[in-house]
């Protein structure tokens, strides 16, 4: 609709359109080039140099085969999936309960808790990694995927609460009241009425938690030092040599890591942006 208001007399439309589309092309090139270059490097037969992979002469999936089997990425994928699934389940349950509390009830310290949940997200992981390492070490849980998942639940819960809060608040209170009139208890209302209505929000929150667990690097790097416990983010480092790097394998592994995140991102983009802005602006 905004386009209509910006229309100019006919003679100037041509140049304006050319400029607009040139800018769009530039933005798209900058945005997509790294992803293109990554995929092209992973399927190119020749990965000796940058120009070799820019327009691959012949394509192969051999690199993927090598990365998944010999380089152990199947194992890392499995580890990452385990960690991500535990994180998603844990943070969804905790966040749904907490979001219901802050969106549906008024109680003392409610504002303080909301501000605390917001502020705690600003704490840099670099500050948490040292005490968490000592804590996890004392508990003998280094190299434990469960231990890592529990920490990831803590990392994703604050934002998940902010995100779900909006979804819970959006459910009309009248729907809840109707359930009470029909004689439902609070628990019955929660599971049979509220839960199904915020399910889309839970999907968005779950995907967000998945991405947190899948991408996290610094804690996984510190907690996991046995090769068979690596997650994908840490496993990627093995291709990076001090003097030579197998860029074909590196890019194939990067593609494997990136694909699920991109798919999820496209699925969740609306909720993610509104969640960020809402958590940020609305309070």
């Amino acid at each position, binding site marked *: 609709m905004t386009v209509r208001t910006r229309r100019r007399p006919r003679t100037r439309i041509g140049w304006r359109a050319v400029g607009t589309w040139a800018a769009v092309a530039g933005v798209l090139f900058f945005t997509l080039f790294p*992803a293109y270059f990554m995929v092209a490097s992973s399927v190119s037969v020749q990965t000796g140099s940058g120009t070799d992979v820019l327009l691959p002469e012949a394509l192969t999936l051999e690199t993927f085969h090598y990365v998944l089997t010999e380089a152990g990425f199947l194992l890392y994928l499995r580890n990452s999936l385990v960690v991500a699934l535990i994180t998603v389940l844990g943070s969804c349950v905790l966040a749904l309960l907490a979001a219901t*509390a802050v969106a549906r009830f008024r109680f003392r310290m409610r504002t303080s808790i909301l501000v605390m949940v917001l502020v705690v997200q600003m704490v840099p992981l670099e500050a948490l990694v040292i005490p968490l390492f000592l804590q996890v070490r004392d508990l003998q849980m280094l190299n434990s995927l469960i231990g890592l998942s529990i920490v990831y639940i*803590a990392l994703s819960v604050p934002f998940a609460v902010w995100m779900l809060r909006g979804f819970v608040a959006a459910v009309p209170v009248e729907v809840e009241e109707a359930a009470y009139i029909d004689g439902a208890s609070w628990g019955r209302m929660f599971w049979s009425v509220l839960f199904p209505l915020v399910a889309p929000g839970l999907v968005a929150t779950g995907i967000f938690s998945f991405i947190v667990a899948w991408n996290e*690097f610094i804690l996984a790097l510190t907690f996991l030092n046995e090769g068979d416990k690596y997650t994908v983010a840490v496993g990627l480092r093995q291709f990076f040599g001090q003097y030579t790097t197998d860029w074909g394998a590196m890019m194939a592994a990067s593609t494997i890591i*990136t694909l699920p*995140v991109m798919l999820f991102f496209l699925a969740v*983009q609306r909720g993610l942006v*509104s969640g960020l802005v809402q958590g940020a602006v609305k309070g």
Partner: protein
Amino acid sequence: MGDPVATRPAASTAGRRPSRRGASLRARRRLLPWTLLLPALLVIGILLLYPLLRVVLLSFQDYDLSNVVSGESDYIGFGNYVQLLTDPYLWRVALPNTVVFAVFAVGGTVVFGTLVALLLRTLGRIARTTVISCIMLAWAMPAVSGTYVWVWIFDVDRGIVRQLLQAAGLVGPEGINWFTERLSFYAIVTLNIIHHGFPFVAVTVLAGLLTVPRELYEAALLDGATAWQRFWHVTVPTIRPVFAVVTILSTIWDFKVFAQVYLMPGGSGANPEVLNFGVWSYIRSFSRQEYGLGSAIAVMLTLMLLVITIVYLRSLFRDEELR
């Protein structure tokens, strides 16, 4: 303010009381929110707040491998902080690498993101949706793989940038190692960060732009304002809160950049010229086992972020009470 916000009414009607039920039920109702909050608060408390307290305590100790083994603590007061603040390395390398970098990265991200948002506004519905989906892909690229892609693009020997520059005659056959020079190292980090960070700014600013009433532009147009004047005097003041949010969030994110530096050649300690606060703290703690000193660096980083966060919260809640 933003479009997405308007679609989610706040819980204004929440907090009704059960009318006909008894007093015991009312008491249970009072405890219910706390019961619901308890698991999340426990996890946050044990795994985020307690470690935060502990890192502050560690920063006042001389804590190395022997302490890790014995579990004893060795308090030295502000010793770590005095050592750090009198170290020229902090002032010459780590602080500029953190703050100056953040200024450029945030500036670049916000300016570029805003330009893209302005461009998106002029597009038709289908084109706009397509372009947004594409730029989302840049946001979705995990930091780990994204960083390696940029390292590959700028690879010193065989990278595409080097080959293009050499073909154009701008670089001799001996090449340039841009990962050893601090400035070029951070130029690549900045490019990486802008590429990863601008989609959030673009999409958020676009949401803000679409809320600006059209009448304002029409009035400005009648008054003979140029496009530039309309932007500065109509758009910017109207969506100033959006700019505040994206700027401060980007600042917080860019101060604690870790993987994007650590995974670059030399970024994990081999080249001390390129460390920022986060990586410096990590290397002191885990490569040199000086956990106390590393904690002190991390606490200083946290304090810087805390100041930015307070500014952020003030700009958020200035004219609106938290509901």
